[in-house]
C-alpha cells in the first residue's frame, strides 16, 4: 500500500468520521421520529463508506463484504423496518425530552471532550485516520445520553443503534482490517435479531398500553 | 481446732439465757425513759413460758412451711451465735464459717420467716414479708461494705482473726475508718433488728408493723420459738458489733478465768450498746417506709467512706 493513497485514505476517513459525529448531534436535537430514522440511515451510509475506503486502502476483500453488509443492513433494512413500525403504530411526534435542546447540546459537547481525553493516550495505535477512536467513543457516549434523554421507545432503539455504529467505527479504526469476518457476521446477525425482538415487544406493549411513552412503564417499584 | 464441748455448751446456754434478758432490759429501760414503770426485766422469760404451755392455732390455709419456720429461725439464730467469738476470741464453731456464713444463716432465717408470713393467705403477712425483705436487701450492701472494711484490715473473714487483729496496740477505736464502719453497722443493726427508726417492735397496728406482721398468725410454742429466735438474733448482732469494734476482754485462749472476765466485759459492753439503742428509740419517731432507704443509703455512704479512709489516711 503506497504512502500517498494511505495519506488520502486517512484524511477521507477522518472527514467521514467527523461527519458521523455531526449527524449524531443533529439526532440529539431532532424531535421528529421519521427524520431521526433517516439521519441514522445516513450515518450508517457514512460508516459503510469508511469501511469501503479501508477496504480499498488495504485492498482486503473481506472489509468490502463488511461495508456491503453494513449498507444492506443498516442503511436499507433496519430503517425500513423501523419506519414500517412507526407507520403501523401511528406515533409521529417525540414528546418533550428530559433535558431541553441547548442543555443536551452542551452535554453532548462535554461528552465529546471527555471522549477525546480518554482516547488521547491510546491514539498512537491507530493506523488510518487521526483520532477516529475519539469519535467512536464520542458516538458511544452521546448515543448513551440520547437513550437516557428521550421518552419514546423507537428513539431509544435508534440511540442504541447509533452506539452500535460507534463500536463498529472503533473496530474499523483501531484494527487494520476490522475484526475477523465470522465475528463481524455474528455481531451483525445479533443486531438484526435484537431489533426484530424489540419490534415484537414494542408491538405487544402498544397492544396492552395505549401509548409508547416509556415513562409510563413504571409499575414495578421497590 | 479442739472442738471441746465445754465451751460449746457454755456458749449455747449463754445465748439462750442472755437473749430474753437483753430484750427485756431494753423494753424496761425504754419505759423508764418515758417515765413509765414498764414490764420487769425478766418478763420475756414468763412470756416464753406462757407461750410454750398454751394451745396452738394453725391457719387452715398454711402449709408445712408454717410449721417448719419456727425451728429454722431458732436453729439458724443459735448456729449464728456459735460462729461468734462471744466471750473469748475463740469462736466455738469458728472453722465452720466466718462473718459471711453468719450473715448467710441470718438471711436463711429471714427467708423462711418471710415465706411463713405469706403462707396463711393474710394481707398483713404479705405486706410484712415484702417490706422486711426489701429493707434487709437495701441494708445488705452497707453491712457488706462495713464487714469488708473490717475484714480487709484483718486480712480474713474469720471472726476470731478479725477480733485478734483489732486487739492490736493502741486504742483502735479512734481510727476514722473503724468509727465510720461502726456507725454504718449501728444503723444496719437498727434496721435488721427492727428498732424504732425503721420498724416499731412494740406495735400491733397493721400499717406500721413490719417484723410483727409476719408473726401475726403464730401462737403457742411456735410463737415462743420464734420470739426466742428473734431475741437470740438481736443478741448475736449486738455482740458482733460490740466484739468487733471494742474487743476489750476477749482473751486469745479460753480458760475458766478468762471466760468469767470475758463474760463481765461482754455484759458491760452489751449494756452500753443497749442504752444507745434505747436512747435512739426514745428520741426518734418511726420513719415513713420510703424514707428508710435514704437512711440505709446514708449507712452505705458511711461504709464507703470507712473503706476509702482505710488507705487514704493510713
Amino acid at each position: 500500500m503506497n504512502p500517498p493513497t494511505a495519506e488520502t485514505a486517512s484524511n477521507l476517513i477522518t472527514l467521514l468520521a467527523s461527519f458521523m459525529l455531526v449527524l449524531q448531534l443533529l439526532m440529539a436535537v431532532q424531535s421528529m421520529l421519521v427524520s431521526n430514522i433517516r439521519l441514522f440511515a445516513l450515518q450508517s451510509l457514512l460508516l459503510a463508506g469508511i469501511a469501503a475506503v479501508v477496504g480499498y486502502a488495504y485492498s482486503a476483500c473481506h472489509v468490502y463484504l463488511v461495508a456491503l453488509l453494513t449498507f444492506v443492513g443498516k442503511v436499507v433494512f433496519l430503517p425500513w423496518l423501523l419506519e414500517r413500525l412507526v407507520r403501523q403504530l401511528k406515533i409521529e411526534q417525540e414528546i418533550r425530552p428530559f433535558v431541553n435542546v441547548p442543555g443536551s447540546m452542551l452535554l453532548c459537547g462535554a461528552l465529546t471532550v471527555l471522549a477525546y481525553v480518554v482516547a488521547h493516550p491510546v491514539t498512537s495505535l491507530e493506523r488510518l485516520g487521526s483520532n477516529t477512536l475519539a469519535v467512536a467513543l464520542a458516538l458511544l457516549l452521546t448515543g448513551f445520553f440520547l437513550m437516557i434523554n428521550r421518552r419514546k421507545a423507537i428513539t431509544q432503539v435508534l440511540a442504541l443503534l447509533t452506539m452500535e455504529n460507534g463500536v463498529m467505527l472503533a473496530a474499523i479504526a483501531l484494527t487494520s482490517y476490522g475484526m475477523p469476518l465470522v465475528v463481524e457476521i455474528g455481531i451483525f446477525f445479533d443486531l438484526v435479531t435484537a431489533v426484530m425482538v424489540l419490534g415484537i415487544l414494542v408491538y405487544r406493549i402498544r397492544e396492552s398500553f395505549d401509548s409508547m411513552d416509556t415513562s409510563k412503564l413504571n409499575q414495578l417499584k421497590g | 481446732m479442739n472442738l471441746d464441748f465445754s465451751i460449746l455448751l457454755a456458749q449455747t446456754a449463754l445465748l439462750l439465757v442472755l437473749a430474753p434478758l437483753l430484750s427485756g432490759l431494753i423494753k424496761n429501760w425504754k419505759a423508764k425513759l418515758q417515765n413509765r414503770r414498764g414490764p420487769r426485766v425478766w418478763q420475756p422469760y414468763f412470756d416464753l413460758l406462757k407461750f410454750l404451755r398454751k394451745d396452738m392455732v394453725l391457719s387452715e390455709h398454711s402449709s408445712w412451711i408454717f410449721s417448719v419456720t419456727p425451728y429454722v429461725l431458732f436453729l439458724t439464730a443459735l448456729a449464728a451465735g456459735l460462729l461468734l467469738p462471744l466471750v473469748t476470741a475463740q469462736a466455738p464453731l469458728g472453722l465452720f464459717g466466718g462473718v459471711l456464713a453468719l450473715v448467710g444463716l441470718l438471711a436463711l432465717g429471714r427467708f423462711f420467716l418471710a415465706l411463713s408470713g405469706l403462707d396463711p393467705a393474710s394481707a398483713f403477712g404479705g405486706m410484712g414479708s415484702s417490706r422486711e425483705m426489701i429493707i434487709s436487701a437495701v441494708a445488705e450492701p452497707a453491712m457488706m461494705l462495713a464487714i469488708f472494711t473490717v475484714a480487709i484490715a484483718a486480712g480474713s473473714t474469720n471472726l476470731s482473726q478479725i477480733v485478734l487483729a483489732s486487739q492490736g496496740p493502741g486504742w483502735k477505736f479512734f481510727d476514722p475508718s473503724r468509727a465510720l464502719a461502726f456507725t454504718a453497722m449501728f444503723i444496719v443493726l437498727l434496721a435488721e433488728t427492727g428498732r424504732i427508726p425503721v420498724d416499731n417492735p412494740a406495735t400491733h397496728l397493721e400499717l406500721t408493723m413490719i417484723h410483727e406482721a409476719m408473726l401475726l398468725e403464730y401462737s403457742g410454742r411456735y410463737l415462743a420459738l420464734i420470739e426466742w429466735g428473734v431475741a437470740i438474733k438481736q443478741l448475736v448482732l449486738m455482740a458482733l458489733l460490740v466484739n468487733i469494734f471494742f474487743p476489750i476482754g476477749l482473751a486469745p485462749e479460753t480458760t475458766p478465768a478468762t471466760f468469767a472476765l470475758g463474760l463481765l466485759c461482754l455484759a458491760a459492753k452489751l449494756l452500753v450498746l443497749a442504752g444507745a439503742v434505747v436512747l435512739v428509740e426514745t428520741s426518734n419517731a418511726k420513719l415513713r417506709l420510703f424514707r428508710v432507704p435514704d437512711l440505709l443509703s446514708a449507712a452505705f455512704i458511711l461504709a464507703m467512706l470507712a473503706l476509702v479512709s482505710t488507705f487514704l489516711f493510713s
Partner: protein
Amino acid sequence: MPLLALLILVPAAAGLACLLVRSRRLLPALGVLAFSATLGLGIALVRQVLARGVVTEWNGFLFADALSAWMVLVISAVSLASSIYAVGYFRRDLADGTVTERRFREFYVLTPLFGASMFLVVLANNLGVIWFAVEATALSSVLLVALYNRRTSLEAAWKYIILGSLGLALALMGTVFVYAAACKNNTQSLTSFNWTYLMGVAGQLDPRLLKLAFVFALIGYGTKAGLAPMHTWLPDAHSEAPAPTSATLSGVSLKIALYALLRFSILTTACLGTPYSQHLLLGFGLLSMCVATPFILVQTNMKRLFAYHSLEHIGIICVGLGLSVPLALFGAVLHIGYHALVKSTIFFAAGNIHQRCHTLQLPKLAGLLKTMPASSILLALAVIGIAGLPPFGIFLTEFGIVAGGMGAGRVLVSVLFIAALVTVFSGLLSHVAHLLLGAPTQEALGPRTPLSCVAAMALLIALLAVLSLWLPAPLLELLRRAAALIGGSP
C-alpha cells in the same frame, strides 16, 4: 467424538424439534431428555478435562478448561431441574388459562435455545463468540420473561432487553479494544482473537488499552451479571418471569455473564500484573451486597425478595473473586454451584406458592407450613441453605471467603462483608418466618402442588445436602484447578 459441539448442538436441536413437533405432551419430555443428555455429556467432559487439562475442538474454536467444565455442570443441573419442574408447573398454568397454547410452545422452543447459548458462552474460545453467545442468551430469555404477557411482565421484558442491549454494546466496545491490543503486531487471523492465544501473548499487550477494555467489559458484562448499580432490571425480570425461567435466570444466567467478565479479569491481571481488575471486582461486589440490603429489609413481594437476594450472592461471589486468595477463590467457585442449586429451589417454591395462593404479597401470606407442608419444608431448608447456616455448604464458602479476606489482611472488606450478611439474614429471616409460621390466612387456595414440582425441589436439596458434607474427589480436584486458574497460575 466432538463432546463440546454435542453439548451445544443437543439443546439447540431440542429447541428446533419442539418447534416442529405437533403434540403438546411430547414437548416437556423433549426438554427433560435434552438436559439430562447435556448433564451426561457434562460429566464426561469433566472426566476428560481432569485427564487432559484442556479440551479443544474445531481447531481451537471450542475450548473447555476446569472453570468452563464446572460451569457446564452447574448449567445442566439447574436446567434439568427446571425442566422437570416446568412439567408440573405449566400443566397447572395451562389448566387455569394463564398461559395460552402458543406461549407454551414458545417456552419450550426458547428454553433449550437459552441453554444452548449458555453452553456456547462457557465453551467458546473466541472473545467475539463469547459476546455473540451472551447476546444470544439475552435475546432468547427476553421473550421468556414476557411469557405471561401481563403489563408488568412486558415492562420487565422491555427493561431487560434495553438495559441488556446497552450493556452488551459496551461489552462489545471492550472486546474491540482487546482485539485491537491483540492484533497490534499485525497477525491477522481468527485465532489471534482466541482466549488461549491472548493468554499466551498477554505480556506484550498494551496495558492502557487493556485497562480501558476492562472498564467497558466491567460495565457491560456487569449489567448482564446484575452488579450494582447496573442491577435495576434484575428484580423486575426475575419476579415477572415464570418460575422455571426465573430459577434459570437467577441461578445460572447471572453467573454466565460473570464468567465472561472473569475471562476479561484473568486476561487483564495476566497483562497488567497489578490486581487492578480484582480491586474493581471487589468494589462492585461489596457495592452490590450493600445495595441489596435495604431492599431486602423492607421488601413486600416474595419473588423480588429472592431476586435481591441473588444480587447479594452475586456480590459475595465477586468479593470472593476480587480477593484472589486461594481459599477465597475456592470459596467463590464453590459458591457458584451451591447458590445455583439453592436459588433454583427457592424460586420453584415461590412458583408453587404463587400458583397455590394466587398472590406474591408477603403481608397477605402466612402459615404456609400448614397449607402447603411439602414445599414449605423444602423452602425452609433452602432458606437455611441460602442464609449460610451450617448444615449446608454456603456457610463453608462464605467462611472461606471471609477467612481468605482476613488472611490477606483486608480487615475493612471482611467487616463490611459480615455486616451486610448479618443484616440481609435478619431481613430474610423475618420475612420467611412470617411466611411459613403462624396460622394460615389464605382462604381460596388453588390446586395442590403436582408431584414433579416437589420432586425437582427435593432433587436439588438432596444434591446440595450431599455436596455440603462430602465433595467427590474428582469434583474437588476440578474446583481446585478452576480456583488456581482464576488465581492466575494456569
